[in-house]
């Protein structure tokens, strides 16, 4: 791969750092999004400032573990304050976050001005970070020179992964129903504070190297994208991690490449990673298998087409039935062979179904391709396959009518539309249940014969 301004020794490490950070944040972010505390990353990113100021005041330097510990402590205090305000004073969750983090930020600001007036402790470095510089700060591990950020963020990811793996069941329960979780005998509070402490650690570890923009983005955006793809927590975790890693790669790539298209130099990776995550969210929002707009639209169209085809088949089946069974009470044996059903013309179909000729023609063409309808001259009739499908459909329809009258005490003149709507979504087990729930007579409330079930013999 040849890219202008791309060197593997440098950019490889940057991408790895970004991926580790993105995945750590996204993993925990899933639970924050599910609990409705997505903005916690933003709150923490502002609220660590007094911690940094105190650490600087005590140690007199702006690097090292002191800063880290102090920032984590400040973050935990923030979380605790937010939760206390919410629980014991009944302040709305968003408002309690807003009150706490702005006040903490202001406090930190004043402290910094007091203790470090002329020292370079710029709050902006927390906000923006400088992932581009991370490969320069290296540690030697087993003879390898590894960037410090890779080590810290790698350990963070490991820690988070361990926590989620160990407390998966508890996290699942507390994410969806903390009252129930409490009643199960373990305290959702313990899990809650464990999670919050890890969020604090992850956020602080990330600020140092990649800035808070990225933390906020990676906590919310990949999990929200994952929600477009799946309803299951395990699936959500997997999707969000994958999307976060992808966003990291795309983000750095585009930060180096995209500005070049406009004849400009490279830009900040952290910003472009957030934008990439947003782009991925948009894609998932369009074609995601659960909530994607396009997916939902296609699903609706497919269903509408199925309904239209079902209607044509049902119509032909009923015509055929009327031709072969002239009186409803005649048994199949005596009536069969009396008439040869010759099919229906397109005009008849169109009039009978109340659809336009064009619409009917399109549906019939589709059914013909599937081999469920055959044409003879200008007429159409069911093939064997089509008849089987139609028979089950009409069976479902009439079972529903019977059920509505017998079990739901509906008026006979109101049952048709309901049955018409539900026949399309009634599968074999449903038909069985309906048959069991009704009196298992041969005739529906209108006096039409309920066709028998067809044994499935698809091996």
């Amino acid at each position: 791969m040849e890219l202008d301004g791309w060197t593997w020794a440098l950019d490889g490490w940057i991408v790895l750092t970004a991926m580790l950070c993105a995945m750590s944040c996204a993993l925990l972010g899933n639970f924050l999004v599910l609990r409705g505390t997505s903005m916690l990353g933003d709150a923490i990113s502002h609220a660590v400032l007094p911690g940094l100021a105190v650490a600087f005041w005590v140690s007199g330097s702006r690097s090292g573990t002191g800063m880290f510990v102090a920032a984590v402590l400040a973050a935990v205090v923030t979380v605790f304050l937010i939760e206390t305000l919410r629980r014991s004073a009944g302040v709305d969750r968003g408002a309690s976050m807003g009150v706490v983090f702005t006040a903490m930020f202001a406090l930190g600001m004043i402290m910094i001005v007091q203790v470090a007036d002329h020292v370079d402790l710029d709050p902006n470095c927390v906000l923006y970070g400088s992932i581009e510089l991370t490969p320069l700060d290296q540690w030697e591990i087993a003879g390898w020179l590894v960037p410090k950020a890779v080590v810290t963020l790698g350990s963070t990811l490991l820690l988070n992964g361990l926590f989620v793996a160990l407390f998966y069941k508890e996290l699942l329960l507390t994410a969806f129903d903390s009252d129930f979780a409490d009643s199960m005998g373990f305290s959702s509070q313990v899990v809650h504070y464990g999670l919050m402490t890890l969020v604090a650690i992850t956020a602080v570890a990330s600020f140092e190297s990649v800035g808070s923009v990225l933390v906020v983005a990676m906590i919310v955006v990949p999990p929200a994208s994952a929600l477009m793809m799946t309803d299951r927590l395990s699936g959500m975790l997997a999707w969000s991690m994958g999307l976060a890693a992808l966003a990291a790669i795309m983000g750095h790539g585009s930060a180096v490449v995209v500005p070049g298209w406009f004849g400009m130099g490279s830009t900040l990776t952290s910003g472009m990673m957030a934008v990439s995550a947003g782009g991925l969210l948009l894609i998932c929002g369009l074609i995601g298998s659960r909530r994607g707009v396009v997916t939902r639209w296609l699903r609706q169209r497919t269903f509408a087409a199925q309904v239209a085809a079902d209607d044509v088949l049902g119509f032909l089946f009923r015509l055929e039935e009327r031709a072969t069974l002239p009186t409803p009470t005649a048994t199949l044996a005596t009536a069969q062979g009396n008439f040869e059903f010759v099919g229906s013309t397109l005009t008849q179909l169109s009039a009978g179904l109340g659809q336009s000729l064009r619409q009917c023609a399109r549906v019939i063409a589709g059914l013909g391709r599937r081999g469920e309808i055959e044409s003879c001259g200008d007429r159409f009739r069911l093939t064997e396959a089509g008849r089987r499908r139609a028979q089950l459909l009409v069976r479902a329809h009439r079972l529903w009518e019977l059920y509505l009258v017998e079990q739901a005490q509906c008026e006979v003149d109101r049952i048709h539309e309901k049955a018409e709507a539900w026949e399309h979504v009634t599968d074999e087990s449903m038909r069985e249940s309906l048959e069991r729930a009704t009196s298992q007579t041969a005739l529906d409330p209108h006096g039409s014969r309920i066709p028998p079930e067809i044994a499935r013999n698809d091996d």
Partner: protein
Amino acid sequence: MIGSSIAWVSVETSDEWFAALLRLLTLADYNTRIVILGTALLGCAAGVVGSFTLLRKRALVGDAISHAMLPGLGIAFLVATLSGGDGRSLPILFTGATISGLVGAAAILGLRSTWRLSEDAAFGIVLSVFFGAGVALLGVIQSLEAGHAAGLEGFIYGKTASLSWMDLMVIITAAAVALVLCTMYFKELALLCFDQAYAETQGYSKWWLDGLLMSLVVGIAITGMQAVGLILVIALLIIPAAAARFWTHRLSRQVLISAGIGMAGCFGGGMTSALLPNLPAGAVIILACATLFLFSLMFGGAQGLVWRAIRRRQWQQIMLRQHLLRAVYERAEAKTTEPKIVRESEVRIEIADLMISRSWSRTQLERLVDGAQREGLITRIGSQVALSKPGWVQAKKLTHQHRLWEMYLITHADVALQQVDRLADDIEHVLEPSVIHELERLLQGRTAEVVKSPHQIPEPS
């Protein structure tokens, strides 16, 4: 910049300090006058708008929207510069940021309705993705020409301590527009906040009202951001409104109190920053607002923790007093078969005998007796007590209530005999006269006398 103080006061002696305070309080100095007027007006308008967003459960919307303005700033700067204009011209930056903020607001509403994402997720997405795009754009601008973008970031971090006459004019206009709109559409916004579904049945479009509220937030955010900075605007939109909720449940009063707290916080914060050296104005204003919040949290009339604790304590005292009266009455009742005939003051009960009635300690009991004596409900004679006339009336009523409720639980709620005493304890204190009347009618026909206890009353050994 949020981090710089109003630095013109330099004081050496106490005389000078006093003179400085006087000049400050009379707003004699031009700079202070502008800073304090500007921030106070902004605090007032933000307090009003914030009340509605808070009730709409969208307190953090200001946070999301003000961050969402960054890319508009960058684009406006780039477009203006590349087309040969002045990228730092205020109207151009203003326009860019406003459009960007409105797009962010629309994105929040869109994410909510199209994908059923929760409010906070929508805020987080818009905040981080827009801000990220802004950071990337600023990065590009930086690399375009070194130092060129300097000052652009100052736009979002504000410059509280050095507001200009122009800034004040902008704030006055924006605050006036916001206040007029909130007054004009007060009823509609209130409906939106409390019962959106009802508002829609009344023919108000949710989109229109939400759009109005969002636009108000955008307006406050853009005005405040370049004047006093991003964080201060977010704080002003949230803290006064959250504080006001502790004082009243009525929306109209909440809005007024919130506006007042916003103004007071800005006023006090601005003053403090001007008076003491080396205090960044924006940060001090936030802390002033936070202090007012804490005060409201403790002493607010409607929800304040202190009042709540006091009320709870008073209620407990009332309950304990009632338990004591009933215990004495029941003892007295046991001592004589005809409690009606005996003169009330003559039935004396040993305090020690009351110990068995409830699980109270001896000291607690003594204290209760003393309290009741002060109220004139009980007379104490040595180690004995007797009910006074008003005490007797009250005790009779309480016992009657207790037993009525016990009987109701037994006959109508199928509660076991062993449990009724405790269950009745929980509810007897809050029974209203109409309920008592209903119970009497239901259980025994109307009678003013005390009903018999359905269970055995424990005897002292």
